């Protein structure tokens, strides 16, 4: 495929703006750039076709089954896109007077309230723009809490299970903490003895995903949060896997003090090829005074702005990724009281259904009833025939199925993590299982077929080592 710069032709124009209808203002030449930026010059039709070609080389949820573990690639309803495009939302300047943005504030206020109910929290902020941004914001709540109590000097450690996502330790460091890693037990949960040994008066808090990154609900959850609280720490819930438990279990009832949720996973807003997402953060009332500025609160005439008394300040400009919030709001209105728990229980059903169908061939890393996702361990297959998780993932591409998450969590060395979500039909799951079982057979009979996969994509495996060793990060103009 050609790049924009390679289809550019000098002098091509689109007639987009009228000529300036006042005297053109002349800046002193010393303030002007010496050369025009080499932006492409392209007609509208060629521009449109360029991106049609790129779209053809992009796999979205609309293209096919996308069982990417930990990412909750559920269907993105079209109506939510339409509602987020309403001019009453897109045409609003963020610094308009409060009386002229009552609709936006209502969307935010009511979204906060519904998310509080689902997570068991008392207050919510919609300012964080992504999950990792939410983690950081949640940890700042914990930081401010300890600072207020005069204990920040010694409470410097955040405990993170070794199965955690890489953003957890990175966020903890950004929030000024050091990280203590605790191992998993044989059942895939947190090793309670190791946890007890790890806590102390230097413990600031714990970050935990539950169900965890193996797709297992930790049965020791109440004990885990108690151990942290007894040591004087706070518990942070990473909402990456909230899609498993909505309406069935709430982080607030498990003993967590603050949470983040991912609107782009659990609440069906599209991922956009890597963003924009949204990572709202909720907390129990004793942490609410530290929430980012401004807060959106209920008022006599609807909803309005307010300031938390001891706010952490701001983590982003304005109020967050508002149009993403609009989509999640519409989604929650549609599903409502009955539909939200139903989504979770069907996500769990679909995952267990697939796991049972695959278990006769593939090794399940921790073979227990799973939540919304499960992890297969390709280690035995690798030992037997030399086929690894990457090979299986790449072979799936030939069948038009997006590969599962590979090599995560790190505690399973040849991991493939499958999360089907609730929006897939039984037929889709059956076919995916058939394909995976077929690939398992191929691995044994013809491993070379898998090593060379994919065979049906527009490119074969890219040379990533070369990309990192000799970085070419922009087009080189001739």
């Amino acid at each position, binding site marked *: 495929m050609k*790049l*924009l710069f390679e289809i550019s032709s000098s002098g091509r124009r689109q007639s*987009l703006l009228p*000529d300036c*209808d*006042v005297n053109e203002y002349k*800046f002193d030449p010393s*303030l002007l750039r*010496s050369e*025009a*930026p080499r*932006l492409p010059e392209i007609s*509208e039709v060629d*521009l449109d076709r360029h*991106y049609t070609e*790129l779209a053809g080389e992009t796999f*979205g*949820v609309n293209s096919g089954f*996308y069982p990417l573990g930990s990412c909750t690639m559920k*269907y993105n309803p079209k109506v939510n896109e339409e509602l987020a495009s309403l001019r009453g939302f*897109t045409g609003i300047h*963020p*610094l308009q007077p409060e009386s002229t943005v009552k609709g936006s504030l209502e*969307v935010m206020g009511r979204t906060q309230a519904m998310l509080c109910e689902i997570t068991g929290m008392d207050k919510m902020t919609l300012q964080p723009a992504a999950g990792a941004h939410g983690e950081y914001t949640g940890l700042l709540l914990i930081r401010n809490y300890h600072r207020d109590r005069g204990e920040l000097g010694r409470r410097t450690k955040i405990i993170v299970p070794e199965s955690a996502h*890489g953003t957890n330790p*990175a966020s*903890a*460091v*950004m*929030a000024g903490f050091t990280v203590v890693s605790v191992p998993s037990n044989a059942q895939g949960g947190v090793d309670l003895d190791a946890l007890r040994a790890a806590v102390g008066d230097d413990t600031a808090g714990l970050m935990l995903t539950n169900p965890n990154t193996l797709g297992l609900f930790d049965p020791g959850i*109440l004990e885990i949060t108690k151990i942290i609280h007894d040591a004087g720490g706070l518990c942070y819930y990473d909402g990456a896997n909230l899609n498993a438990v909505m309406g*069935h*279990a709430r982080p607030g009832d498990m003993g967590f003090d603050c949470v983040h949720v991912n609107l782009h996973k659990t609440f069906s807003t599209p991922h*956009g*090829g890597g*963003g*924009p997402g949204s990572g709202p953060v909720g907390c129990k009332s004793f942490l609410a005074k530290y929430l980012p500025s401004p807060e959106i609160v209920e008022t006599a005439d609807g909803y309005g702005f307010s300031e938390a008394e001891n706010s952490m300040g701001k983590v982003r*400009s304005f109020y967050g990724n*508002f*149009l993403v919030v*609009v989509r999640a709001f*519409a989604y929650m*209105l549609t599903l*409502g*009281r*009955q539909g939200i728990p139903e*989504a979770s*229980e*069907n996500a769990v059903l679909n995952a267990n*259904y697939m796991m*049972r169908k695959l278990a006769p061939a593939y090794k399940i890393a921790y073979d227990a009833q799973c939540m919304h996702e499960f992890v297969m361990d390709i280690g035995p297959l690798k030992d037997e025939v030399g086929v690894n998780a990457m090979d299986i993932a790449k072979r799936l591409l030939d069948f038009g199925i*997006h590969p599962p998450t590979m090599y995560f969590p790190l505690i399973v060395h040849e991991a493939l993590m499958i999360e089907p979500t609730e*929006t897939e039909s039984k037929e889709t799951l059956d076919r995916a299982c058939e394909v995976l079982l077929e690939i398992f057979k191929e691995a044994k009979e013809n491993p070379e077929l898998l090593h060379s996969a994919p065979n049906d994509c527009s*490119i074969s495996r*890219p*040379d990533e080592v*070369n*990309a990192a060793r000799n970085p070419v*990060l*922009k087009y080189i103009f001739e």
Partner: protein
Amino acid sequence: MGSYIPNTVDERLEMLKSLGLSSFDELYSVVPEAARVRELDLPDGLSEMETVAAVSRIAAKNKVFDSIFRGAGAYCHYIPSVVKAITSKEDFVTAYTPYQAEISQGVLQSIFEYQTQICELTGMDVSNASVYDGATAAAEAVLMNVDGRRKKKVVVSGAADPQVIKVIRTYCDSRNVEVTVVPVKDCATDTEALRSAVDRETATVYIQSPNYYGVLEDAEDIISASHEAGAKVAMGVNPISLGIMKTPGEYGADIACGEGQPLGLPLSFGGPYIGFMAAKKDMMRKLPGRIVGQTVDADGRRCFVLTLQAREQHIRREKASSNICSNEALCAMTVSVYLAAMGPEGLKKAAVCSASHAHYLAKELSKLDGFELVSGREFFDEFLMTCPVDPDKLNEKLAENGILGGLPIDGNILWCATEMNGKADIDRLVALVADIVKEAE
């Protein structure tokens, strides 16, 4: 109620049965009783038709202004139709981060194109794939050169957007990085005060030009003073201005960053927006966030991948350069399509028209008694002006005429004009302002 689950109730029961279960409750048997919830206190679900009606009713409670003379960090520019059409293609909308390069060349190539355009615009060598917004871009930028040992302070211009300063403070406080905010003099950074604030422990100096008050900073002077003291300089810019104005690269800045919203993204009550970040080559491995690079596949064909991942959290965990694990990919594509549609001539026109309209507005307003530019310094498309009446009262009257006036700041007003505010629009505003002031007398 609404639902997006394809399986019928019978199919679900059949699937449960195949697992040896008879109820959904059994799927949650591992959850301790004290952590179970039986019913959520939420409204009943809705059909699609009802949801559309409900959300549309709420949108109608917002007031959409026909004419906007307010900027202050969010700008109303013309968005070509082709931008929305292209970025609504559902493959782009519904894809995940492009981890599987073989089926993600579309997204990867578009980010590579975006990175190239940002480098061209800013005069920098290397760009990342974007971050959340302009404020977090500035915060990540000032932290790039902090090493926790020798370089542990940052110096920030007080004439930068106050929201950006707030986010920089948040990011720095939690890392125990000291922030010094340089006072403002005549609507710009007090250069003398900046000189004395920057020392050998200063990792980065952050300035914004045009700054919060619309004024073009004396960037050359500030950058050379900072470099003499051994500090790097991150420069925030309005990307539209770069259609004509001198680039951060030409001024000698080490990092360029800013809010990309003016490049094709609607105002949208503050988001989604996009933070762009670009740097000189020597800072390449300190850039946070996703970066796309060019390589070849096993058959020697050109292709694109996420690269330099050794900086990132999923490899480095607590030693990563940032915790960010996404970008604003669809917004980056929006920016890229916008810049390609506009081309160098179109972007130049947007910049020239914005600046010309703003200067015409300033000239016309200053013909009225009590309206004077607060500073005589050169500005781009925003300027701070005195106001002889209560700015909020003035804006209320303008709002009745469908106009969003400038942003009130301490009794003055920060006005903004872009290519969207033509002569007739401006003349109407000025006539209304004259009437309102006269009425108030």
